[in-house]
């Protein structure tokens, strides 16, 4: 019996999931906008302590990983499974690189005793406490999404090597690509709001 496949249905399912993810982060962005409005100066002060260079680097890394993801899908459509897996591996490596840099940023802050509920942080003004709370929650939730994405893409890579994903059936690759692009888009908004506000 042939497996039932529904290409359009699969993509609709993924898009619906992405919409729910947008609402999830949307709630946090709502918090951010409210507290930013209330404590603009404190946010400006605290944001200055974040490493803009690392933030920009991470942005470029994710943008490039989106490129390699798109190229991976394009190449499998054209029948080149080998090239497709190479692009997929690059995407995964970029994702890991992003997480490594993020961990450097976090450990640096934690080393300076700035983390949720640390005495040092609590001694600062309320706006700054809120900024860091939002910083850790939002980049943390985003980082978790990147980590999950790396796992999912690795599983997809295994499927590709086994031939389950090929020129005729690649909706799994496309859907994980959609997820990955969303993670990129979320960072595209997180980056300026945390690192670049003046």
């Amino acid at each position, binding site marked *: 019996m042939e497996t039932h496949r529904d290409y359009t249905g699969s993509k609709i399912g993924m898009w619906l999931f992405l919409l729910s993810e947008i609402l999830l982060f949307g709630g946090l962005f709502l918090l951010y906008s409210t507290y930013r409005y209330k404590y603009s100066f404190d946010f400006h002060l605290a944001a200055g302590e974040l490493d803009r260079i690392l933030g920009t680097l991470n942005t470029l890394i994710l*943008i490039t990983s989106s490129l390699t993801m798109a*190229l991976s899908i394009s190449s499998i459509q054209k029948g080149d499974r080998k090239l497709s897996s190479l692009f997929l591996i690059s995407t995964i490596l970029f994702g890991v690189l992003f997480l490594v840099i993020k961990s450097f940023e976090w450990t640096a802050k934690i080393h300076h005793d700035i983390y949720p509920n640390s005495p040092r942080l609590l001694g600062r003004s309320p706006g700054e406490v809120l900024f860091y709370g939002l910083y850790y929650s939002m980049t943390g939730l985003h980082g978790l999404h990147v980590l999950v994405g790396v796992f999912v893409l690795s599983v997809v890579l295994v499927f590709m090597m086994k031939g389950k994903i090929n020129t005729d059936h690649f909706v799994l690759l496309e859907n994980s690509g959609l997820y990955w692009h969303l993670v990129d888009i979320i960072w595209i908004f997180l980056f300026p709001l945390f690192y670049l506000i003046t």
Partner: protein
Amino acid sequence: MEENKFHILKYRIYILVWVGLVMLTGITVSAAGLNLGRLSVAVVLTIAGLKSGLVLNYFMHLKYERRLWLFKLMIPGIIILLILFIGLTFFDVALR
């Protein structure tokens, strides 16, 4: 197979989109250096919106989804929803 019936994008288009994204990143970082005060949030969000538009339309293929208008409507719909949420919240927060 349905999957074969759609538009295969050339590699070149993806690379051009990537160049555009990198340039917009550069612009947004430079814009942050200028002292625009209140306007800075609007500028930075607009550029972020442009970048997302590029990712959505080209990398995520929305521009080439002919089959279902549903896909093309979902994203503007959710954006309007978020603007509503944040906007309506500000009716409260801004007037306290």
